[in-house]
């Protein structure tokens, strides 16, 4: 239908317009985020020169990386258990796993903040990581679970018959088969953690702070196109992670 196609095209334009604006103004020669002067790389230079912003970028990457590693391990195991286990705990675990997906982030942030402060823990990169991992596990589980249910269990049976231990079977048969889904889930979680604002906002220490928190402070205190430069860089990193995830999914599917 012609109308639908036009609508979809307009929709895409609407979706991408703000991103174009962000990237465009990151190259603004003037200090404004609204009026375009000429083309300049000064804001990228400002970002690269600022040690504190570089520190924040590294912090964001570190957090995303650790979150990816830990939550994919925990989430993959959990997915396996949910699909294969017959115990009663499995169904409660299923509910427990689904709730974070529908919990508003502010609730997550508040509960994480209270947990750390009431335990006397100092807020730091570690506390952010713990919070991010908690909310990433569910995403990993959902993605991996979908793939898990398509596995051919006969191969596992064969391995067991040949004398492999359960662990060996899991490592050598199940994991390789799950690998694309695990990787895709990991990259998804990486992107989500890298972009996350609300959770980080509630659980961040004083320094370094992850990039989204720095952006929030900048928006509150005084915006220069450095924000756009940061945003464009973050865009690049997130999109790269997601693109990679899609490629991996398609290749092995």
């Amino acid at each position, binding site marked *: 239908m012609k109308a639908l196609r036009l609508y979809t095209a307009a929709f895409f334009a609407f979706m991408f317009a703000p991103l174009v604006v962000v990237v465009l103004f990151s190259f603004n020669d003037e200090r404004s985020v609204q009026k375009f002067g000429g083309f300049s790389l000064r804001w990228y230079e400002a970002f690269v020169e600022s*040690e*504190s912003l570089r520190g924040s970028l590294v912090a964001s990457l570190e957090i995303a990386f650790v979150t990816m590693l830990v939550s994919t391990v925990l989430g993959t195991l959990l997915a396996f258990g949910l699909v294969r286990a017959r115990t*009663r*705990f499995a*169904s*409660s675990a*299923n*509910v*427990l796993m689904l709730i974070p997906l529908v919990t508003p982030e502010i609730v997550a942030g508040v509960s994480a*903040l209270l947990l750390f*402060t*009431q*335990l*006397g*823990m*100092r*807020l730091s990169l570690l506390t952010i990581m713990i919070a991010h991992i908690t909310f990433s596990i569910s995403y990993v589980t959902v993605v991996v679970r979908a793939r898990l249910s398509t596995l051919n269990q006969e191969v596992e049976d064969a391995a067991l018959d040949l004398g492999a231990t359960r662990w060996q079977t899991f490592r050598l048969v199940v994991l390789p088969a799950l690998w694309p889904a695990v990787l895709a889930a990991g990259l998804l979680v990486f992107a989500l953690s890298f972009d996350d604002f609300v959770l980080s906002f509630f659980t961040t*220490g*004083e*320094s*370094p*702070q992850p990039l989204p928190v720095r952006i929030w*402070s900048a928006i*509150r*205190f*005084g*915006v220069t196109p450095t924000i756009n430069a940061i945003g464009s860089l973050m865009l690049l990193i997130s999109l790269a992670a997601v693109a990679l995830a899609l490629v991996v999914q398609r290749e092995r599917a």
Partner: protein
Amino acid sequence: MTRDPWKAPLRRRELLQGGAGLALGLGLAGCGVGNQEQASKEQTERVVEAKVDGDLVYFNWSEYLEPKLIKAFEKQYGVKVRESNFDSMQGMMAKLRSGNRYDLIFPSSEWVDRLRKANQLLRIDLDQLPNADTVYDYFATPWYDPQADHTVPYAMYATGIIYRADKIGDMSGSWNDMVNPTADGRAFLLDDFQEVIGAGNLVSGAELNSVDEGDVEKAKEWALSVKPKLRGFSTDDVQNMVSGNAWIHHGWNGDVVNIRNQVDKPENYSFQKCSEGIPLGTDCFAIPANAEHPGTALTFINFILDPENASKNIEYMGYPMPYTGPDETFAGLVKDDPAINVTVEDLESGQQFENLGAEGRRLWDRTWTEIKAG
């Protein structure tokens, strides 16, 4: 066979198991885990030397200290300054309460009083700061730090209304200029509970710091009557005025200088001290009791107190710093614009924000939530 997870008996069991998780949390709370230990008197009274002992974790308003001075300090002493900003005193307190450890903070006087009484500030031995001999005598025994051994004054400020003189011609000199019709939709109140409730108190003729429920109720009503005309609440008066989003802004005197430094037509930006009353205060250098690098903090304070550096700072942020010598730089800035000035005499005779005490603060806190939400 597939089991329906929602069959009744299982549901109860799951609720129990889920409840176990919650109970764990409640149990943790019950054990009284957490609640920060208050620092002991000995901890805060130890004398720290003004020697660099690591990078400086610096927590201040934004645009309140000349960035070039920070770079110069880093260069001279070979340390990094890790800067973060707060946008209100309450915001600062929230971060302190979360356990974040800063080396140098900039509380205003009434907050100093509160922090000091709760043993949250480290002792500052003025003998360690050779440049501190230029500080005004008034600050040898200020009301909020009677022995001047936990703070060094940073700047004096007054709250009033910053406005676009070129757009608004009929300012009446009152706090009610906040609802000037020309500026409808381009007005901002400070996002600060003390400033707004204080101004409300003044407007109705009460004392700035009144915690009388009737007075505070009237202050709330004033704020709620102004609210529909506002564009927003914000403590970023500099940016809002510079960008043109604000034509009238509840704000601080020195910010006018800061604004003028950034715009094409400085003469268009003016400051009004309101006839019903002018809240005054002092912002201070202070070192939290749990600072990890107090020596560097002391070194930094001394560095800023150096008359040349203080003068440069005044030119940037536009507030009077109470030191003999640099105050001449400030006098130069205000000779055509006496409204920006705040002197020690003003401090002695005017109304300053006080530490309200727990009850009073709770009342103001609740009223503030009601103002924001109402």
